[in-house]
């Protein structure tokens, strides 16, 4: 099932510091995970996040959680359930409705070495605090020339849910993904959620952790290794969820599930799709994406955010810059509709990519349809 290539990261030509210079010498991508023991347990994403927070808070007393309803309400989406009882109100801090204030407080405490996990009830509310995420968190290590780093995590649900309207449905991957100084992670499965959140909390830089509300309740198999309290996934590495040879589909968060289902449908029609779970928007794993495109020669990018200046646009540009000669067809970009999210159920369905849309786009890329 998995082709396991044990290659050291150092061989893939990625320089430790240059985030922009990675595309110059591409080697075949490593499969980002080794062959773990057969999965014996299923875990919801919600439990994965909760257990990751629990373990990190237990391991390091500097880690604390702050946000609206994280304590007594057990979390607006129950991600922080049980933490207040275990760790007390000084470490699970309920705040007033003051995003700008408490995001800034988190940043200020991170300047002094604490490791806050700031929860935004949804990332739409982060717009009230975006000045702190970007100007006082992301840019501080640079402005202070390395004197002050900011080991903070901003987490919360991102993107559309179901019928929550225009102001609660925006995807912020593209906005935060364009800011140097931030790391932006987008987990899909429970293993992603656990490994990436633990890595994010231990990381010395600001991390924007974009979850998805509709994935919280979904169950995924987890290996024994993923359940270990030291388990972390590398930041900046994509995962090839499904190997294929005809077309590359890149997706993140909920769209990975849709892409996998689309790939099954396409398999029956003779198209063998490779699905890449991005896991990380910044740094974007250009090496994996380009290596995959050089193998399959066709690319379809999928995202739920607005199309202009989106993640797909960046991936397309990266592939055109590095692997133009390998493309056999124009890159197909699937994104949310270029409208504020409507409320009506049928309109909302049209406003976001569905599995049929992915299938159609792949067929277009494979010149099997108009």
């Amino acid at each position, binding site marked *: 099932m998995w082709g396991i290539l044990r290659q050291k990261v150092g061989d893939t030509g990625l320089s430790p*510091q240059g*985030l922009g210079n990675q595309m110059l010498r591409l080697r075949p991508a490593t499969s980002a995970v080794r062959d773990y023991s057969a999965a014996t347990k299923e875990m919801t994403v919600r439990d994965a996040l909760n257990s990751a927070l629990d373990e990190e808070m237990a391991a390091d007393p500097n880690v604390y959680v702050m946000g609206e309803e994280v304590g007594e309400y057990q979390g607006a989406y129950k991600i922080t359930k049980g933490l207040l009882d275990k760790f007390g109100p000084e470490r699970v801090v309920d705040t007033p409705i003051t995003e700008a*204030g408490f995001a800034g407080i988190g*940043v200020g405490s991170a300047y002094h*070495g604490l490791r806050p996990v700031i929860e935004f009830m949804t990332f739409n509310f982060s717009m009230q605090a975006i000045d702190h995420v970007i*100007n006082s968190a992301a840019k501080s290590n640079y402005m*202070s020339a390395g004197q002050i780093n900011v080991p903070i995590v901003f987490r919360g649900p991102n993107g559309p849910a179901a019928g929550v309207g225009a102001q609660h449905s925006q995807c912020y991957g593209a906005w935060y993904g364009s800011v140097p100084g931030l790391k932006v992670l987008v987990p899909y499965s429970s293993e992603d959620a656990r490994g990436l959140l633990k890595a994010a909390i231990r990381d010395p830089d600001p991390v924007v952790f974009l979850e998805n509300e509709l994935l919280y309740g979904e169950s995924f198999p987890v290996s024994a290794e993923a359940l270990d309290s030291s388990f972390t996934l*590398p930041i900046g590495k994509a995962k090839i969820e499904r190997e294929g040879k005809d077309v590359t589909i890149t997706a993140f968060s909920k769209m990975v599930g849709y892409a996998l289902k689309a790939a099954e449908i396409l398999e029956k029609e003779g198209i063998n799709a490779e699905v890449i779970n991005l896991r990380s928007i910044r740094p974007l794993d250009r090496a994996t994406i380009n290596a995959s495109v050089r193998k399959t020669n066709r690319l379809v990018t999928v995202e739920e955010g607005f199309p202009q200046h989106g993640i797909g646009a960046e991936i397309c540009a990266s592939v055109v810059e590095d692997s133009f000669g390998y493309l056999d067809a124009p890159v197909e970009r699937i994104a949310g509709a270029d409208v504020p999210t409507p409320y009506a159920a049928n309109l909302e369905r049209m406003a976001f990519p569905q599995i049929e849309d992915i299938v159609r786009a792949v067929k277009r890329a494979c010149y099997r349809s108009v």
Partner: protein
Amino acid sequence: MAFARSIHHLHPLPPVSNTRGLKPSPLFLGSIRPDSHTHTITRSSVSVSSSAQRRSAVAANVSDVKTKPAANLLVTKEEGLEVYEDLILGRVFEDMCAQMYYRGKMFGFVHLYNGQEAVSSGFIKLLKQGDSVVSTYRDHVHALSKGVPARAVMSELFGKTTGCCRGQGGSMHMFSAEHNVLGGFAFIGEGIPVATGAAFTSKYKREVLKEDCDDVTLAFFGDGTANNGQFFECLNMAALWKLPIIFVVENNLWAIGMSHLRATSDPEIWKKGPAFGMPGVHVDGMDVLKVREVAKEAIGRARRGEGPTLVECETYRFRGHSLADPDELRDPDEKARYAARDPITQFKKYLIENKLASEAELKAIEKKIDEVVEDAVEFADESPAPSRSQLLENVFADPRGFGIGPDGRYRCEDPKFTEGTAQV
């Protein structure tokens, strides 16, 4: 304790109704208030800041101090000279910045602090190294008062690699981890939540990490910021959680060209403190000793865990908002009135009249500071500009990201990671 009383008997500003309307009431601005022209602070002519309320009560009891006049004074000779030196450093440094800017050595946005030195010296000279200072774009003097060397600040302003932030921050972004200067923020109000967070850390260290920590944080900002949402959010949370922070409003009456009275429904900023459950104090920010007295009380409160204080310092900037500001809107009379209350002249007079220092000693200090600042300019001039490779440095503390270990391999692929030997 003194502040608890001072909330009610705070200071004799006229009732708010006098300050409505565009024409500033002279009493409110203090410019022709009789006591504000009292340059010497003696027990007889105690001026009417909040600290005065307290002192007048104390003065009645202290009868044996008459025989030792020096003990009445608010500073010892040592402290006085330290404060004087800091005042002069702030003034001379900023004047040199203006010169350098017009010669093209400094560029971009430069905001000078002339006239407001009493606030910086009055507060910051009472702090320990572990205490933190968070400022705005008008941050050169805050950094200097906190102990960042003049050379480092000047080089930073010139954009050289020897600057305190290696030339990557600039005038508006002074950071120093060693001296706990946490910025330097260009957006007004941005520093206030960051300062509140630094204060939160002190409390967290005491309560959760069980460390002995009584560090306080000072947040400096202006009158314009006192209308900003983040300010109120932080007043609320600081009072709610009793954080060891002092909110210092440098009310210089002007936000670029917007007069404080045109922008604010109730111009008396100190009142916003009690509205959120903390003491609000108004002090004459042109008098360094008054500021120092108020600061002592506020910092003491914070260290004892009694919570935050809001201090409004009435002050004035002698120059424009920035070096690019033509400064046409301010009344020259107003400028002249405040120039007559120059904090340095006032304090010099106090030191000499109370025999804490002689003219010669003060002149020696001024000469020394001149040399320090000139040396800083020379140093900055001769320092190299950052090398090209510095452009991409310092974006991240760990560019590889946590999940990749120092040897370049993924931590989760290390067969020993489950045994706790994976280095965290």
